[in-house]
Each structure stands twice: as structure tokens, then as C-alpha cells.
């Protein structure tokens, strides 16, 4: 499923919330919408499932103008996750997840199976959580239920509005990693709103930066961090070079393409590698940190299996930080 905003505008009583937004999202892509608070991210997102009607311009889902699709029909096939989660407190966790399948009048057995499958998918054992009440859940658990509820009817599109904004940083990182895992198997078309740059870089295939209702830039994370536009420079911060290094693997820097492993998110660098060496699946940010720590300008690069691959030098790092996207 593809998505597209075409010159979409929305004004709330003399405040321009979204100003002439044009943007496309391709099938299976995870697009992150980012920008300062109040820049129109939520409004843009809600145009897709028609919770907001654009004043002018249009939004297309799979080439079809959404204003021609009945709103309820449209929404039942678009997953929707919000920051406040919005779980229904009077329904059990299972009933919350079953909300959309019930609207779609699925059979009971099918709903039960689906609820179990989804709860397990989001890491909440169904036996333990199906009958729980939302008020008893922790923030992270509630948000997992929110994701499960959005995925219930297997919608091809997922809209997520700061879904992990209200949980603590550690939980947020766990949720992000799990979400990436789920997304890698489901391959939904996702629009993900956040104001957290690290989250955007970690999750996004592309990042669209908004400012005061306008689209300021849209690019892959690595390119965005090289963008010279003053607003983008400012927005991506003083340490954007470090952020860039955090996206690249040691292997890539020495010409041996290696994906960053899931563990690489949280310091896989130390694991198993002998002193003075770094694993190829660690990030360059971690490698830099190890160099500074050891007072060295070069490290041995070893494969996850421990085989020596080559040498990672400070020059490699400088080149990668300045250079073009390698991954």
C-alpha cells in the first residue's frame, strides 16, 4: 500500500497547522515524521485516516482519494496507535485487541486466535495478560497492547503518533527494538510520528522533518545528518556526527558490509572481542568510544565469530563521519 499527501493544507482558526504538504510513502516503507511540538505532525497523520479533513489538497491511499472512502471503512483497515494509548478502560486487554475484528464481525474463534497470536507477538503472554484490565498495566505493557490492537485486523497501513513517547528511555528502547522485529516480518507501510531524533534515526527508512506546518526536508537518516540546511543542522544537533557514526557498522567502514546486529544497539562491541579489537557488527560510535577509552588510534576488527578481518583506524572514522552513506 502506498500513501500520498498532495498539497494538503489545514488551518485551525487562523493558525496554519499544515501548510501545503506533499509527500509520498512507498509500499512497506517506514516513514518517520519529526519536528518540534506543534509543527503539524499529528494533524498530517490524522489526514490519512480522516480524523482531520484537509481544507485543500488531498490524501491518497493506494492511489485512491481517502475522502471518497467511507471514514469507518477506511479506518478499520488502517492501524492507529497514539501516545496516550487510549485503551478502553472498561474492556479487558483481550477485548481491547479484539475491538476492530469485532467491528469487522469476525467469527469468535478467529478473533480469539488472533488475539492470542497478537499478544504473543508483542511480547505479552496471552495466558497472563488476556484477562487483565488496562488500569493494571505498566506504561510499556499498555503501549504494547495499543500496538497489538492496531495490528488486530492485519491492516496494511499503520499510523503511529508518538507511540513510545510516554515510556521511560529503557522501555522505549526495548519497544523500538521489538517494533523493528515485528515490522521486519510484517512489512507494513508505516507513518511514525516522533519528536525524538534518535528514535527517528533508529527506526526510519526515511525521515520527513516538519517545521511550522511545512515539510522542511525528507531524506534517509544518513543523508539527513549531512543536510546543510540551517534548520536541519540545528534540529539534528551538535552531535550529529556521532549520530551518523552510530548508524554505521565497523564492517562497513573497512569495506566488509556487515549489518549492525540487534545487540549492537546496546553496546554489542564489548561482547566477546579481546582487548584492542572491535567486532565488525558494532557501530562506529562504539568503536570511537573504545579508541578514546584505550587511547589508541586504531583497533583490530574481528568478525562476530572472532576471526580477524582487518584494521579500523581513526582515518576510517573521520572518512565515514564526513562521507556519504555507506550502508
Amino acid at each position, binding site marked *: 500500500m502506498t500513501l500520498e499527501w498532495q498539497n494538503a493544507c489545514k488551518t485551525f482558526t487562523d493558525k496554519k497547522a499544515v501548510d501545503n504538504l506533499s509527500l509520498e510513502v512507498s509500499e512497506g516503507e517506514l516513514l518517520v515524521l519529526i519536528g518540534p511540538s506543534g509543527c503539524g505532525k499529528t494533524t498530517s497523520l490524522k489526514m490519512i485516516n480522516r480524523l482531520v479533513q484537509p481544507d485543500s489538497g488531498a490524501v491518497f491511499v493506494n492511489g485512491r482519494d481517502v475522502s471518497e472512502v467511507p471514514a469507518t471503512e477506511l479506518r478499520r483497515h488502517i492501524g492507529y496507535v497514539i501516545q*496516550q*494509548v487510549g485503551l478502553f478502560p*472498561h474492556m479487558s486487554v483481550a477485548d481491547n485487541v479484539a475491538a476492530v475484528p469485532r467491528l469487522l464481525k469476525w467469527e469468535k474463534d478467529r478473533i480469539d486466535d488472533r488475539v492470542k497470536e497478537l499478544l504473543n507477538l508483542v511480547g505479552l503472554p496471552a495466558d497472563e495478560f488476556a484477562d487483565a484490565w488496562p488500569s493494571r498495566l505498566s506504561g510499556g505493557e499498555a503501549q504494547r497492547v495499543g500496538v497489538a490492537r492496531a495490528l488486530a485486523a492485519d491492516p496494511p497501513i499503520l499510523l503511529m503518533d508518538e507511540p513510545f513517547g510516554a515510556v521511560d528511555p529503557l522501555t522505549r528502547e526495548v519497544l523500538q527494538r521489538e517494533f523493528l522485529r515485528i515490522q521486519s516480518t510484517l512489512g507494513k507501510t508505516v507513518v511514525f510520528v516522533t519528536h525524538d531524533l534518535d528514535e527517528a534515526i533508529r527506526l526510519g527508512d526515511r525521515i520527513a522533518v516538519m517545521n511550522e506546518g511545512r515539510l522542511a526536508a525528507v531524506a534517509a537518516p544518513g543523508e539527513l545528518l549531512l543536510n546543510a540546511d540551517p534548520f536541519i543542522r540545528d534540529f539534528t544537533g551538535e552531535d550529529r556526527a556521532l549520530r551518523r557514526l552510530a548508524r554505521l557498522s565497523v564492517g562497513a567502514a573497512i569495506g566488509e558490509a556487515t549489518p549492525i546486529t540487534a545487540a549492537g544497539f546496546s553496546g554489542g562491541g564489548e561482547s566477546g572481542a579481546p582487548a584492542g579489537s572491535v567486532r565488525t557488527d558494532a557501530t562506529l560510535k562504539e568503536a570511537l568510544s573504545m579508541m578514546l577509552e584505550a587511547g589508541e588510534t586504531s583497533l583490530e576488527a574481528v568478525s562476530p565469530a572472532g576471526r580477524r578481518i582487518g584494521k579500523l583506524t581513526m582515518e576510517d572514522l573521520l572518512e565515514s563521519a564526513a562521507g556519504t552513506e555507506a550502508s
Partner: protein
Amino acid sequence: MRERFDVVPLAALFLGAASFLMPFAALKENRVVDGLLLNGFQLAGPLYGTVAVLTAFGVLTGVFLMKNGSRRRLLYAAAGVVCFWLTAALLVRAGMMLTGGAAPRVSPAIGFWGLPAASYVLIDHSKKGRWRMWILLVVMLLPAALLLAGGRGEAISVFREWSARKGRFFDELIVHIRLFGMAVISAAVLGIPLGILASRDKRIGEPVTAFVDAVQTIPSMALFGLLMAPLAALSRTFPLLRAMGIRGIGAAPALIALTLYALLPIVRNTVAGLASVPLSAIDAGLGLGMSQRQLFYRVEWPMALPHVLTGLRTASVQAVGNTAVAALIGAGGLGIMIFQGLGQAAPDLILLGVIPLILIAVAVDRSWGFMIRRWVSPGLDMKGLSA
């Protein structure tokens, strides 16, 4: 921190002691004379006196020697039941002490209320589990009921009054229940949709709330009176209405006034309940693809329900009491006995009206509590709503 004594049962002890130290009952030769006042110890005799002292020791043991736990709570509950039995026993013994007169009787005096109050405190304090409360209630009431049904209580003043007008009593009881029941049902049928409408549309909401607020400031007694004149005029003008039994006095103005009165808590709570639904739940519901109707039935209504039911509860309990006042405009009900009793300075007759009134009020209150627990999703927070 130093462990504190469980002080609440000590309060019960004081209340119970009041029954024994203050006048418990008056022995009278007839309805109006001042009788001979006797306190609990004078009435108890050796057997019941011993029971009372043992109960007090039991409570003290629980407070000072036992660890907090189910055993101790059981002890308190047992002591509470015994206190209640003692109340009945003392009344019956007072009846046996009557010597003569035209219509000899036992009237409760100020100290009478000590033991039931102690019983309430102890049982309330031992509270655990719903079904246990029911068992407790049966254990508590059964011996007293058997005693009274066996004729041992006929000297108790209220029963004297009751046996003098059994038929009338039940008629008025039924009139009372019917009147308040119909008023609450009409108020619910009117008030809930009004509340929903009021929360949908400000233009309806503001005048509706202003109206029900204004009605509430008019004293219930006055509202009855105010409706008499217009209804009498209507009934004079339209013979059809008169044929339907609508007149200036009687059930029609009472029903209208009671309904108007019950509207406020219902409308207000319906509005408050719907307003309490968080925006995020509505956003989520719409986002998942619910229609307005589905959103209302699946999300908004169930979440407003605790408020709405609490409104119905308040309205019903108030209506029970207000219906008593309706007797003043000839609507009948238990108020008849209360006002007759006040007029004849006959406290026993007042009690005959008041006791069932209070029992109905408490029963109605508890029934709503039961239904609220049944109907409201346990996932919802009932805090902030009166218990």
C-alpha cells in the same frame, strides 16, 4: 513504627456501654404517658448481663491480645451479632416486666440505640467478602425475627401500633413503594436521554442544567404545594384529566414533583459521566473505525455508566424520603403514619412509619450498590464516586 491498637472496636464498646448505663426502654401503661425508664443492666438480669460482660471481654481480648487477622475479625463479627441479639432480648425482657394498664407497651429510649450502633461498628469493622455479610445478616436477624414472630415482642410499642392497623400499614407501604418507584423510573426515562442530549449540544445542555438546578432549590414540600394549584386548575378545565384521576391533591402532583426532584442527580451524573470519557479513548475509538453510534454504545456509555448508576442511586434514595413528605398533599404512603404520629404526639406511631422508611432507603441504596458492582466493568475506577 510502634504498632497501634485497633481502636475502632473500643468505640463500639463505649456505644454498647451506653445502652447499659443510659435509659434503654420506657415501660408505659398506654401510648401517651411517660413511663418508667430502665437502663440495660436493670433489664438484663443475670443471664444477659453475663453475656454482655463476656462480649465486652471478648472485644477487649481481640483488641489487646490477638494479632490482626481473620480470627480477630471473626471475633468482632460475632460480638456484633451478639450485640444485636442483646438488643432484641432486652426489649423482650422489658415486655415481660410490664405490669398492667390498658395497652401496656415498651418504648425504646435514648440508650436503646447504643447496642445496634455498636453492632454496626463491629460488623462494619470486621468486613470481609460479600457473601459473608449476607450470612452475618441472616444469623443476626433470624433469632430476633423468630422471637418477635413467636409473640414475645408484642408488647414492644411499634408492634402495638402495627397490630392496631395492619391492613392500613401494608396498603400505605405499597402506595409508598409504588409512588417512589414510578417517580424514579419516570425520572430515569426522562433524565438519561436529557443528559445525553445535554452533553451533545450546549444549546440544550445549558437550559436543561439550569432548570434541574433551579428545581432542586425549591424545597420538596413546597414543590408538592406549588403543583397543586396548576393541576387543580387543569383538572377543572379538562374533564378527561379529572376522569384519569389527575387532581390538585393526591398521587398526580406527588408523582410529578418526585419525578422533577429525581431528575437533577440523574441528568447531572449522565452529563458528568459522558464528560469523564477521556479524549484519547474517543480518538482511539474513532481511529479504529467506530461509527458515532458504535463509539457511543461500546465506549462512551459503558464508561459513563458508573456515574449514571450513582445518579440513579442518589435519586432513588432521596425519592424514598421525599415520598414520605408527599403524604402532606394526600398522596398516601408511609408519611401518613409519621404525620399522624407527629399530630397525636405518639412517638410509637412515628416509629411505625419511620422504621420501614429507613429500611427501604437502606435496602434501595444497597441494591444499587449491588447492581453497580454487577454492571460496571471492574476495569473502571470507582474512586471519587460515593460508595
